[in-house]
């Protein structure tokens, strides 16, 4: 069930009403936990067991790390063993369900390259929805408790809700236990909920995800599926559209998640800060999927040594972090290359900063343009179905010489440009400000009308009914 589906709206309306009717905090949390598991079961009930396993193990390990807990480990070695157990189980589950096929395929390919035929069949394992997100959440909890930065949670309900809270369960943002668990201590007050802000944010997210991203997807899909048949302009248009699509898709979904949580009285972290307005690649990573980039910084880059070691070690740490960050997005080498391209740009940016060159006039504009161009280029590898396809697209994107005769409607390039201008103009969050400033009756009327316009622009699938697919 997606947030944009009518079934979710009905589900959320029911959960919202029930959550505010229930007075006792503990019952409210139980209700939200049940709703979260029901929501997840809508995807595939079998994978509830994975969430339950991950939750149970990290809760128990957290209790084991609690100096006041029953059966707690008292020695540093014992603590370390518990941490290793948590890392092993969580990363093990992730490795099996997300990366096993990738590892086998890569190994077979490598053996084939050196003339050995492994004859291994690549297993088809269903990827449980949201596994990358909740695994990182539970890991951050255990690591924070181990580091002594966070007191272990006593209530299993609180911990289970932290892991499985449905607004952020399947697509983030990645929530830190230190931010979320304290919010569960007392029942939120209805009077404290910023209804107007969250309703507006939900609609903005809905428009970004359903009306923009989902409508643009077919055009980019067509070109990425067979780039060798398209003109250079079509390829450049498709890359520009894809950049808009992925941003609107991801950030729109996050907006809706934050809004849903907000309407239930809980705060989730900001995940996107108008990333295409970044002045540099480093700035881009402060604006794009912020909850992931900060997670990688705090739990990977810094433990590796961060920028505290030698100059070379800093670059190494940067590259390891970005390569693994790329792999986190998907089990394919194209994602690793995407991470590598960003790592290269960040390394270059770091070196550039060290030279302390005088700032030239127009440098900021040039920096933004270069960053945007580089980010667009890297999206090719992020979305490409193969390296061959990515190569064709990169060449056409940079040279302007297209490999094929098929064109896309040139108006789509104008559309991409228009959407970029809207992105730029939205940086001051004018919609939210207008919504805040309106009288109640005007807000209600405008909201109803805007929702109708959003529904009007929903993309409905045009392919034949499945029962004709024999």
């Amino acid at each position, binding site marked *: 069930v997606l947030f944009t589906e009518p079934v979710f709206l009905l589900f959320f309306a029911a959960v919202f009403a029930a959550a505010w009717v229930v007075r006792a905090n503990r019952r409210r949390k139980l209700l939200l936990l049940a709703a979260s598991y029901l929501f997840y079961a809508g995807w595939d009930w079998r994978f509830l067991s994975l969430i339950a396993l991950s939750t149970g193990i990290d809760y128990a390990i957290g209790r084991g790390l609690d100096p006041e807990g029953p059966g707690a480990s008292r020695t540093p070695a014992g603590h370390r063993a518990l941490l290793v157990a948590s890392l092993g189980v969580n990363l093990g589950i992730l490795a099996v369900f997300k990366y096993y096929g990738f590892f086998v395929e890569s190994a077979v390919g490598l053996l084939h390259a050196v003339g050995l035929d492994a004859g291994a069949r690549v297993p088809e394992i269903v990827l449980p929805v949201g596994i990358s997100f909740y695994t990182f959440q539970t890991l951050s909890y255990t690591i924070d408790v181990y580091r002594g930065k966070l007191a272990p949670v006593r209530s299993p309900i609180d911990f289970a809700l932290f892991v499985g809270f449905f607004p952020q369960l399947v697509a983030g943002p990645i929530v830190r236990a230190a931010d979320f668990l304290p919010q569960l201590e007392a029942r939120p007050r209805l009077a404290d909920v910023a209804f107007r802000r969250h309703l507006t944010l939900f609609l903005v997210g809905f428009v970004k995800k359903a009306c923009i991203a989902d409508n643009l997807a077919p055009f980019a899909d067509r070109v990425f599926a067979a780039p060798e048949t398209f003109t250079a302009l079509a390829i450049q248009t498709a890359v520009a559209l894809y950049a808009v699509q992925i941003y609107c898709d991801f950030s729109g979904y996050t907006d809706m998640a934050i809004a849903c949580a907000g309407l239930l009285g809980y705060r989730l972290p900001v995940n996107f800060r108008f990333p295409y307005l970044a002045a540099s690649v480093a700035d881009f990573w402060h604006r794009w999927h912020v909850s992931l980039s900060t997670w990688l910084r705090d739990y990977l880059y810094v433990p590796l040594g961060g920028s505290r070691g030698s100059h070379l070690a800093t670059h190494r740490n940067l590259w390891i972090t970005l390569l693994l960050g790329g792999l986190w997005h998907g089990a394919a080498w194209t994602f690793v290359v995407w991470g590598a391209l960003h790592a290269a740009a960040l390394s270059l940016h770091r070196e550039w900063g060290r030279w302390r060159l005088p700032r030239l006039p127009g440098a900021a504009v040039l920096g933004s343009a270069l960053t945007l161009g580089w980010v667009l280029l890297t999206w090719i590898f992020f979305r490409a179905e193969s390296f061959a396809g990515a190569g064709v697209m990169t060449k056409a994107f940079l040279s302007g010489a297209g490999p094929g005769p098929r064109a896309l409607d040139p108006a789509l390039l104008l559309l991409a440009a228009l959407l970029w201008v809207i992105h730029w103009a939205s940086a001051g969050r004018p919609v939210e400000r207008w919504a805040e400033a309106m009288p109640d009756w005007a807000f209600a009327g405008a909201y109803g009308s805007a929702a109708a316009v959003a529904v009007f622009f929903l993309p409905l699938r*045009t392919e034949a009914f499945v029962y004709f697919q024999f």
Partner: protein
Amino acid sequence: MRRSVTLAALACAAFAVTAFGLGRIAPHPEMGDLDDKLRFFETHREAYDTLFFGSSRVLRGVVPEVFDAEMARRGRPGRSFNFGIDGMEGHETVALVRRVLAKGRGRPSLLRRVVVELPTAGGLGAEIQPENRFKARMVFWHDPEEARAAARGALGKGVGGWGAAADHALHGLAHATAAGGGRTLLRQVRERFGTVPGSLGRPLDPAELARSGGFEPFSQASYGTPSTHPVRRRFLRRIPEYRRAVAALAGTGAAAGRPAANESQGEIAALEHLVSRLTAAVRRAGAEPVFLVTPTVRPAPELRALVAAGGTPTLVAFDDPASYPELFAVQNRFDADHLTTDGARRFSRLLAERLAGSPEPDEDHLLAERR
């Protein structure tokens, strides 16, 4: 609390008014081939006296050019258009017939007969398959009348139940709120500035539609080797099985009018209701409905039972292999349900032969209906 309820009501009212207004501008979402046919017919509605509606069995089985030539040869000159669409069944057929023949659009003055593939009862009122939910065509056919009929059918004995009824209601809501109409509007705007390159799907060329009359054969590539179309491949693998099914049908079950075994009472009731509404819609447009059973090895005895009970006006059935052996010959079949292009040409000739042999719809009666 009261204030909140008032504001929520105001938001709902604004939503309804805006959705209604938008629905006036762009009445339905983009639907690929069906859109192209609807658009074509809008500008050619005075050219045709016979319309065919149905699933892929009609789309790929009735060749208007052949049908018209045979009718002319038998002293009934006219022009027909094939409104068949892949996967179109039951409620969608009724919704499309009603829309095409809607009074507000001006009745096609030459229209004399509407040939509709008789829907089967199976699946009527059932839950919408998850893969088909909120597809453009699914939302399109859930206009208020059809959504109500489908929801009512779902609540019949032994059918989908409340879940299915709610599903239909949700789709009805999507229809009522003009969901997906935005793309149609954008297309209309673009058309004002010229052609629309790069639109989704492969738009049917109006000139080609005028030539083909809406008939669409399976592409030649589908026939070739068994490695082409998966359905064709399966059919070629199971020819002995197909022959056994044909032999079992010949002169026996299909025409016997025995009651349905598999369909629930609820489905039969839903079918009766659907057929009576189809009949009424066609007659309101001043034409005469003709129900068609295509040559298929899937007998639908409940339809015969319906006809025997006087539930349909005219029925032309081609599902008896003993009467129409050439339509069931392997060389004329694409698969167990569909005909090859040669098979379709034969079928179209036979169909014309049957219709030319039946009395012409009464002119005075049609004129009276039109008035």
